[in-house]
């Protein structure tokens, strides 16, 4: 049990820590801080890997620590530590104060003690006992990897599971006092197929938050069939010919392009850096009128959902783009302080060793009116990107994404599979070219790495058509 692991320290999960937290915050305010925030975490994680017909790795891990952030004017100092004793936490506050070189003892804000405890964890304390055991996970992963063995062209089969249970306490000098338990589970399957000189990969990942039973309900046969079919379809694929062309991006993980190429540019951290072309575009048209985009943390069970963000604010549903018009930025506490954009419940971090930053949660393009076939039928010569790999966005907004599974579109029909395609472009140039959105919105889980570490997110979209984009190939 989580709460049994740290009784030797003064912070105790599952108990009232109000007096101690208030004492530490008063200490920081007394030293001249404008704002003091304490984030305390205890984590209980496990991962299991099955390869071929064996369990090859079982890795439990435990972590605990605190991240203390002090603001003075618009500057902030952040200290993280594994020492959860009173002395350890006070020492971290002193260190942050010293780093900021605070000599002015006048505070902009007054600390009147912590508010009533908002305990989001009450109904979640049993989760640790409800998640599948390592034995149960191992059994199901082995059945899953066995399901992947569909012919002799499959040369490697892997199934992986990871579970992250995080218990947090958040307290700050604006009175915020909250605690929560978060549970994330992911399971993935992947294969390599080979025949003579031909090779292909197939992979899928599934994930949920706050649903201890989800892994048991996971349809491993369906997943294995998808992975197998994808690898077989791509095994003898030719390399795509490079050039400018219209593309249709599939739903679910196709949304990774919007996430990377546009979503990140709508985080206030990008405004702070001066690296977003959308900084002064609020209420202006930045995308085709068919595009409405949303970022929210409230869809039940979605991988990016949360009861409360890492700064103690409940998440909201933020309409970022409405009919092509930019409506909102994704903001955290520092973002609000430095850019004026109101917080959206998006202050997130990987763990206590990172300061929270404005980060996406469940981010997707809203559904439109067309069917997938309508989109494909509208193209004479183009590319259908059924499955996307990873990608990245440069400091000036250029993005590139690997297409894991692609098919040529000829005269409105899907034809040959092609490999080696990369989509290249810039968000502000591509967004106006999303001319058709399908009616089949679906979400897919993923991990997003950025300034405050790796956080759980979902990406999503219906099928969408981009009128023209650069496709890298050979």
């Amino acid at each position, binding site marked *: 049990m989580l709460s049994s*692991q*740290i009784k*030797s320290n003064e912070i105790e999960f599952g108990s009232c820590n109000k007096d101690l937290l208030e004492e530490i915050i008063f200490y920081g305010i007394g030293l001249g801080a404008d704002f003091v925030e304490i984030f305390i975490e205890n984590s209980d994680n496990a991962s*299991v*890997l099955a390869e071929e017909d*064996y369990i*090859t*790795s*079982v*890795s*439990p*891990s*435990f*972590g*605990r*620590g605190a991240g203390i952030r002090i603001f003075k004017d618009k*500057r902030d*100092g*952040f*200290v*993280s*530590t*594994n020492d959860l004793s009173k002395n350890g936490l006070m020492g971290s506050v002193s260190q*942050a104060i010293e*780093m*900021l*070189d605070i000599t002015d003892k006048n505070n902009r804000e007054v600390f009147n003690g912590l508010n009533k405890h908002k305990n989001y964890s009450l109904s979640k304390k049993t989760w640790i006992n409800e998640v599948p055991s*390592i034995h149960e996970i*191992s059994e199901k992963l082995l059945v899953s990897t066995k399901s992947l063995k569909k012919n002799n062209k499959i040369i*490697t089969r892997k199934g992986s599971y990871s579970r992250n249970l995080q218990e947090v306490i958040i307290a700050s000098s604006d009175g915020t006092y909250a605690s929560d338990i978060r549970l994330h589970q992911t399971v993935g399957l992947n294969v*390599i197929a080979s025949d003579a000189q031909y090779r*292909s*990969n197939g992979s899928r990942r599934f994930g949920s938050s706050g649903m201890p039973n989800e892994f048991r309900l996971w349809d491993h046969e369906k997943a294995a069939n998808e992975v197998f079919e994808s690898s077989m379809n791509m095994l003898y694929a030719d390399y795509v010919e*490079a050039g*400018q062309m219209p593309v249709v991006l599939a739903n679910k993980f196709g949304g990774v392009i919007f996430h990377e190429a546009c979503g990140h540019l709508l985080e206030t951290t990008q405004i*702070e*850096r*001066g*690296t977003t072309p959308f900084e002064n575009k609020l209420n202006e048209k930045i995308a085709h009128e068919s595009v409405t985009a949303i970022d929210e943390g409230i869809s039940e069970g979605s991988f990016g959902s949360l009861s409360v963000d890492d700064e103690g604010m409940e998440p909201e549903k933020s309409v970022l783009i409405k009919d092509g018009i930019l409506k909102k930025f994704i903001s955290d506490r520092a973002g609000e302080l430095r850019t004026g954009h109101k917080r959206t419940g998006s202050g997130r971090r990987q763990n206590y*060793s990172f*300061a929270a930053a404005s980060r996406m949660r469940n981010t997707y393009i809203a559904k439109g009116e067309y069917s997938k076939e309508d989109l494909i039928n509208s193209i004479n010569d183009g590319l259908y990107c059924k499955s996307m*790999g*990873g990608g*990245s966005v*440069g*400091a*000036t907004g*250029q993005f*590139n*994404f*690997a297409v894991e599974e692609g098919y040529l579109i000829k005269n409105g029909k899907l034809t040959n599979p092609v490999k*080696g*395609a*990369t989509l*290249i472009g*810039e968000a502000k140039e591509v967004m106006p070219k999303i001319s058709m959105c399908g009616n089949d919105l679906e979400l897919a889980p993923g991990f997003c790495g950025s300034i405050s570490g790796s956080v759980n997110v979902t990406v999503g979209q219906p099928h969408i058509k981009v009128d023209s984009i*650069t496709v*890298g*190939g*050979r």
Partner: protein
Amino acid sequence: MNSREITTQISKAADFLNLKKWDYGASFSNDYSVQVDKGEAKQLKASQKQILTLRVWNESNLVGITTTSDISESGIKNALNQANIASDFGNKNESTEFSPLAKDPIKVEELKKRNPAGIKKLLTLLREAEVKLLESHDSIKSVPYNGLSESFYERVYANSDGAFRSYTKSQAALYLYARAEEKDKKPRSSGSVKLGYGVDDIDIESCIKDASKKTISHLNYSSIKTDKYLICFSPESFLTIINAFSSMFNARSILDGVSLSNKTSIGEKLSTEALNVYDDGLHEKNISSSPFDGEGTPTKRLCLINKGRIENFLHSESTARIFKTIPTGHAGLGSKVSVSPDWIVVEKSKKNFDLKTSLDHSTYEGEFVYIEELNAIHAGVRASQGSFSLPFDGWLYKNGEKISIESATVAGDIKYLLKNIINIESNQEVTTSGISPHIWVDELSITGDA
């Protein structure tokens, strides 16, 4: 607790739990970093971290593992207990043992450890660097990504057979990534990273100069026509490619079926006889060098490609046993032990008669694409298939002029690339990931939007 006390604590707890065989790796660090924004301190950060990874062997000699940040007496007991439970699920198909080299002598260079400079000094130095970079050219409007950090750490490996080794070290890093803007042109960005054992070892002026020069050099850009081009890889970009496809030399990847090589690939011809590639984690220029790996095996220089042919694979204890050789000092410490290279050194061998030595990036006047830096490696490399399609920063050299290339990718196959190396320049350059000269490759596909 210090590392000796932790070892004693683990030994006592293991005895209590009747665990006869165990080992652990631990890391303890204090890190400090600063970022600035137009002269203002943006975020100042300090962290104290400890992480302990414990492995235990059960009576069936199956291994279980647990990682924890709790090194209290109860935390260690809990971790051992969890590792013992996990050992029930240990890999029955491939056994793991202590490295036979875990007690071999190692060379620990304590002289390379520096004292902390402190946050205030870091901040002052970074502020000055930002100002100088902004003043270096009118077009440089901001330095959106910057940071100066220093880290002080101790790494430990010990096992129940009496092996114990540790070292302490310091490392500092400066990165400056500038953004330049000119009217009616797209913004351009580039940067530089410098490492040192301490802040005073970092050549800050050279970092500023490199960041400025690189950023400005991309201001006059143009699209490139999609076609096949003669390519010159910078030392940094060639090392990026070699590292991205290092599974070719990785025994773990070979056993897992995700490498382009197989057990019998030693001796296979990959490239021109002029090419030698080593992994040399202890190289004097490698700031991040570690005298031993995750299993306690001493780090050493290992030849990977000798005169164009595969010479050795990288090994952990278990892969070495399967391949009937010895561990090479490239293991991690995990439930499934990973293997990875440390620091790649690329050299021109003495057998270099087949090279086109007229190809020199500073004098050649024909048309070629110079690849300065490859991006998005995680997305654009299919290591198990051998293919890559990667965006890059670089220039098109034509008629004695060089024009920065706007938004393009280079695509190909690693085996094709290695087979088509047509020149290896003489001068090696030190980068943050290794050492290499400029490497010329005959014809790779470039996709642009001209």
